[in-house]
């Protein structure tokens, strides 16, 4: 069973629609008992970082998500919250990826970074299995995680940033797979099938 975390700061409906379309069963929950039972966790996120971190604390999920050993996929803000820190609301994240999330400089590019951009992934990447290199995915972000050793794919918006991150059982994507048409659904099914 897949669990989609509903903590009051995510586009749960769209993620649930995508997983439904793929034909997997899932629950939408913020209950730790349910999350303990789940095989895999999807951690969506939309909105403002410090607001979302507060919702994680309100739901007693902050410590729990740092310690799980099962595969978890953070989406967009979800991925950013898995980093050490975000400049958005100057807030500490889950600290899974040792990175600081920063804002695009408006002197260099339009902010927010909204629309379809290409993703270039490293070889032997489970999330991007059977997806063509430099495929388009839908992004909607003003902040980004810099490129790091844990970066498994990059996207360019004047500067290169992490389109996906991976560490042990933790995965994160900056784009919205649930809104990225056929390729996005493929990323979700790759996570569910292979990660």
């Amino acid at each position: 069973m897949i669990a989609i975390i509903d903590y009051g700061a995510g586009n749960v409906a769209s993620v649930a629609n995508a997983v439904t379309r793929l034909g997997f069963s899932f629950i939408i929950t913020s209950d730790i008992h349910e999350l303990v039972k789940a095989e895999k966790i999807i951690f969506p996120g939309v909105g403002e970082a410090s607001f979302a971190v507060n919702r994680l604390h309100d739901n007693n999920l902050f410590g729990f998500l740092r310690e799980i050993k099962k595969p978890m996929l953070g989406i967009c803000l979800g991925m950013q919250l898995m980093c050490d820190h975000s400049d958005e609301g100057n807030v500490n994240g889950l600290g899974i990826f040792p990175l600081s999330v920063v804002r695009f400089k408006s002197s260099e590019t339009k902010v927010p970074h909204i629309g379809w951009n290409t993703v270039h992934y490293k070889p032997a990447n489970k999330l991007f299995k059977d997806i063509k290199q430099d495929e388009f995915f839908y992004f909607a972000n003003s902040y980004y995680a810099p490129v790091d050793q844990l970066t498994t794919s990059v996207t360019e918006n004047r500067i290169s940033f992490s389109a996906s991150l991976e560490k042990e059982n933790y995965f994160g994507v900056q784009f919205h797979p649930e809104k990225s048409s056929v390729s996005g659904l493929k990323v979700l099914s790759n996570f569910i099938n292979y990660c």
Partner: protein
Amino acid sequence: MLSKRIIPCLDVKNNRVVKGINFINLRDAGSAVELAEVYSNEGADELVFLDITASIEKRKTLVELVKDIASAIQIPFTVGGGIRNLKDIENLLKAGADKVSLNSSIVTDPQLITSSSKQFGSQAIVAAIDIKQINNSYKVFVKGGTEETALEGLPWCKKVEELGAGEILLTSMDKDGTKSGFDIPFLSLLTSNVNIPVIASGGAGSMQHFLDCFNNANVDACLAATLFHFGEIKIKELKNYLQQNKIHVRV
């Protein structure tokens, strides 16, 4: 690099698509959900739904429609039309819309831009601005273009950016329906004065018009309605044409 976006716009009344729908092979020509699927399969980058229903029941039915659309397509979409407050916005985003477009309500209550972008993220808040030239100046119109305001076009666009809007959907009323091309002079002035993405609307009549707008006005997206609804231009053909002419599009 971000690709340039092509966005069909659908007017919806009582959950049915109205105005110029001439698709063949549709089971139900007025079904917003079915048309959304068609456009999504043709390669539309996102969709805009403008609800023009004028009834008390509107909000409830619109939320239901958004749920149906969100379960049918896996591309982003925006919903607009009569959205007045944070609760309206929350209900639509929760139902699966990615963005809301705000027009008359932010002229009455500009702070709605700030409060909504704080709560839902600026990427979810589109400021829809309708402008018309009156005596050599651009005036902002509200209520579906029926009411002139005291606001000037460019200063209002800069204001919505400052207040926290994530995108501007700029409709030129002078151009709308004329098929004479987008309002490139205003749009290029706009994109050199704001730093958020701009969606051009009003005036599309040919593939060349889209090309000119991307090349000369530096917009991020172009929107059209009847042109696509009547099948005069197919989205696939348009995107192939733009790609051949060195515009970065998702094909």
